[in-house]
């Protein structure tokens, strides 16, 4: 794992985080994993708010605020930055 960031926000790469700890991370954030990817506490599938696609645990990005869970791809990241400001 590597962490980095600027004064605004520290960025933590979870690419190499073990799966069980990714599950713990989601649990700590009130989320979980279902058959088709990340789910909310009530079992609803989490969709990337910018692409409307289901978010998979192995490709997720999680930003603070109201816990924005996205698919980690350039389009979604750019859309997040456009909406919330540079991270």
């Amino acid at each position: 794992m590597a962490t980095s960031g600027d004064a605004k926000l520290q960025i933590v790469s979870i690419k190499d985080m073990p799966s069980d700890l990714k599950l713990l991370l989601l649990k700590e954030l009130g989320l979980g994993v279902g058959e088709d990817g990340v789910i909310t506490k009530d079992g609803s599938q989490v969709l990337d708010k910018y692409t409307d696609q289901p978010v998979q645990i192995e490709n997720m990005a999680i930003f603070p605020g109201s816990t924005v869970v996205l698919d980690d791809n350039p389009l979604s990241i750019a859309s997040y930055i456009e909406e919330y400001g540079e991270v």
Partner: protein
Amino acid sequence: MGDDPLKSVTQGVTLGALEWTEQKIKDLVKQFQNRQLAFIKSADNIELVKEELRSSEFSILRQFIPKKTKYSIQIQMGLALRRIANDQPRAMELRNRIQRTFGDSGLHVAEITQIGLTNQLLTRLVGLYPKPEEVTNKFLYFLDHIEDLAIFVRNDSVPSAIASVILTRIESYTIHLMILFGSGYATNVVLDVLKQIEDHQRKYVIEILREGPQIAAFTFTPELGAKISHWSDPIYTRPES
């Protein structure tokens, strides 16, 4: 960035490798809840986006594109496509995602940005319209109608049919300019189209841009062309065959 944990990420400073433990996760979640950090898969995508955001090209383009619009994202994605063009699987995945999210028109905005034509279009609009808000309005108008105003010519396209389409649209759309683009064998088709437009009695103004196997042409109505009379002439010189 890749997988090297010691390489700097975005503009930030590498803080070093951490061991993954349950306690570490809980500590990181606390920081997350205090809005001090974000979790990402890897730095590749965020680094790519930040590079485009800081590029001089996007800095200029964004002055004429309202923030939080689909065009701002599509243009950023076009610049990203250009940067990752040599990584074909990644570029293809991004192209597909742009198309799924924004449709064909959104992909075309990204594509004309990727090949530098958005930039070229803005340069011409700035030359044509003195007020920044006019430039923005015309720029957005063009992007709104990109499916009709930017024609991607294929090597099996029929020149006379394309010329006819251009002659109709350039008069009926209020921006009165169109872009043609072709690559490889389609280059000759583009030149044939331009020859037919050049021969028209209206005397349309044509400017050709060539780069490697690609050709792009801006076509203007004569009235619009008159506004850009500071351009050198003749603007269009048919290459020797």
